[in-house]
């Protein structure tokens, strides 16, 4: 991602400073995560639990403790004249609480929402300011978007040739090669100086997309580019999408056409998504379905780690001298292994540890001493139980399955503390069944039951309250 100009940064820094002095801070919390990591449910839970906490419910005790009990109220900032769709937190909550319940579908478009947190001043200075300006009001900006698009971020730094080389190298390894066999056979058979035939470009894209969809939906892979090939968004499929990676040495009209489409695609993603929404944020949380990656097998697990490393390398981390000078950049990043309710309590520490290993193995610079790495469940759907397996008692979880409405125990397998050795991966591909959400109050008065969401929020934004 190109660096912002220092002048823009300085202006933004001055604006942040003025807002802080007036007790009207604005905090952009970027909720990043690969597809199916649970971003939409996470945001719904954050909104519902913060609104409930604003009304006095003890939904987020760790955050309240971090705020020193000064949180006086939370409200949704009324809609203005925004062109971006509004994140429908009440709608998602109502769907989760409905009978039968419905999980949010795959996110197809961007949406945003703002919460205003009213906080009593902590210091004498703050109290003096409060006499003039009233209570402190911290506006929390939240953004939901299709997770697939996040992996376009590393593409912004690459040309077509480099992207093609890396993508094809990944596709030719292990189980990916099985899924992409048809596409690989097609591109390998293309003449090096193929002319710009539209039929060839369309066929190549069709085969490439079919391979990506199979990798995502049947094998649990995540490092799949470009994002809009998998999730075209509300604008639908446009010709600029019709490109695919070409082997080295291709230089004819077809290669030119694909190169131009690749460049146009990146320009469009930058203008429509990254520049307006990803340029400047203050806090960031990265959600990862670490358990899903573990269950999907060795290659899918490593693929997730690789995707996270690529994203982390592409995101600004706010450590440069210019960032320090202007007060811009991400000041705090949190990593969360989602769906922690899919493992019993005793395995959650291990899940957090595995998450740390997943993130830190290839990106050690990302993990600072204060970087929170946690296992969370934005909505808790199970309770702990024990079961007999092969004659031995094991800790398991049980919940009501979405598919048949039966209360069923599930053994999530052993959760290793770090990436396990080769003997671990003998188990076949396993996909955790979807559980029904627990009984919820549809009006949101009691928030949403969760695991560890409060501690994560306290670590991310507690210092601002």
């Amino acid at each position: 991602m190109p660096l912002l100009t220092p002048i823009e940064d300085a202006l933004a820094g001055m604006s942040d400073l003025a807002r802080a002095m007036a007790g009207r801070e604005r905090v952009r919390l970027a909720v990043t995560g690969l597809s199916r990591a649970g971003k939409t449910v996470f945001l719904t839970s954050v909104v519902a639990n913060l609104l409930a906490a604003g009304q006095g419910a003890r939904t987020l005790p760790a955050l309240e403790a971090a705020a020193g009990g000064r949180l006086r109220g939370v409200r949704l900032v009324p809609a203005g004249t925004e062109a971006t769709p509004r994140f429908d937190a009440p709608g998602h909550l109502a769907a989760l609480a409905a009978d039968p319940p419905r999980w949010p579908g795959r996110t197809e478009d961007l949406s945003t929402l703002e919460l205003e947190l009213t906080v009593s001043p902590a210091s004498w200075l703050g109290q003096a300011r409060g006499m003039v300006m009233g209570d402190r009001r911290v506006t929390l900006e939240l953004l939901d978007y299709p997770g697939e698009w996040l992996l376009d971020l590393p593409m912004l730094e690459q040309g077509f040739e480099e992207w093609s080389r890396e993508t094809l190298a990944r596709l030719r390894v292990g189980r990916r090669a099985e899924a992409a066999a048809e596409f690989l056979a097609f591109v390998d058979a293309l003449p090096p100086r193929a002319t710009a035939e539209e039929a060839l470009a369309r066929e190549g894209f069709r085969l490439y997309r079919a391979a990506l969809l199979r990798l995502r939906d049947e094998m649990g892979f995540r490092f799949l580019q470009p994002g809009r090939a998998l999730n075209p968004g509300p604008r639908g499929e446009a010709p600029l999408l019709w490109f695919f990676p070409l082997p080295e040495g291709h230089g004819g009209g077809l290669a030119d056409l694909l190169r131009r489409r690749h460049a146009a695609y990146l320009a469009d993603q930058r203008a429509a998504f990254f520049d307006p929404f990803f340029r400047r944020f203050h806090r960031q949380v990265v959600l990862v379905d670490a358990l899903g990656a573990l269950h999907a097998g060795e290659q899918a697990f490593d693929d997730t780690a690789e995707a996270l490393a690529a994203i982390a390398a592409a995101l600004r981390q706010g450590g440069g001298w210019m960032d320090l000078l202007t007060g811009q950049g991400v000041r705090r990043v949190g990593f969360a292994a989602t769906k922690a309710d899919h493992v019993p309590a005793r395995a959650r520490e291990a899940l957090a540890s595995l998450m740390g290993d997943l993130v830190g193995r290839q990106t050690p610079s990302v993990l600072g001493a204060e970087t929170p790495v946690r296992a969370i469940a934005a909505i808790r759907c199970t309770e702990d139980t024990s079961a007999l397996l092969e004659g031995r008692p094991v800790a398991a979880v049980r919940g009501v399955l979405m598919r048949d409405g039966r209360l069923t125990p599930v053994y999530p397998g052993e959760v290793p503390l770090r990436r396990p050795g080769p003997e671990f991966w003998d188990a076949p591909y396993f996909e955790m069944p979807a559980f029904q959400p627990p009984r919820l109050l549809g009006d949101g008065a009691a928030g949403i039951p969760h695991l560890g969401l409060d501690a994560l929020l306290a670590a991310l934004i507690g210092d601002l309250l």
Partner: protein
Amino acid sequence: MPRGPRVLTEEAARPAPRLDLGWDQAVVPVAPPPISRRWSAPALAAMGVLVLLLGLSAIDVAGFVADQFARGAPLGWLTLGVAALGYGLIGWAGLRELRGLAALESVERGREAVARGDHAAARRAVLDWAARVPAAAPTLPALKQASDLPTLLALLEAGPLAALDRQAVAAGRAAALQSLAATAVVPSPALDGLFIAWRGVRLVREVAAIHGLRPGVAGTLKLLRRTLFEAGAVAAADIAINAAVTAVTTNPLVASVVGDAATGAVAARRMLLLARAASRACRIVTPR
């Protein structure tokens, strides 16, 4: 240990209701510890003085009435009538004090219910309030039908509260004009201050009356204290007040009398600010 994850199907498993994790009960707001309302020493002393004054005077008057009856029945009845009238008026004043305080309390209850998100309690308090405020009468049927709290609040803000805020600002403008005029004609700065203090208290009572409250002495004191807290929040809207001050001080008539007297402008600003603060303090719903 078996490593592979799996779904443990049980033959006897039957369709089950949604899991109840007991979350609703776990997050119920903790009631704050009840604040023990103990009488402060000055309040106890004041109450003692009041009891002595009223009690001893009542005993004294009772003795006097008895003496008057001893002198003659007509004289006794007349004295009794005078005493009953006097004490009746004092009692009536006390009753009005209590009613004023009760009205303030009901506004407080409404605000608390809104803050809690308790639609039923907020609706009760709002309907009670609307019944005694003429400006709310046209909106009363809609308020009764409001199905949720946001609708109730939106109706209040759009209808009666906007009208009451406007009336309060108008009262503030009138008080500001009077303060300007007073600073021009009152010869001594001390008298100046006295006038502005008196006008300020009167303004707070006027604004309270606009909002359907008729506070007595105790109610006024309570309201003054609350107004003082609200003044901080109102100062945030300084630009609006500056504009209003300019509007008042550039009134041709006032300008010809007052000129550009700085003290006059300060007094006018205070009145306008006070009107807004008092209006915030008296509102059934805390302004956003």
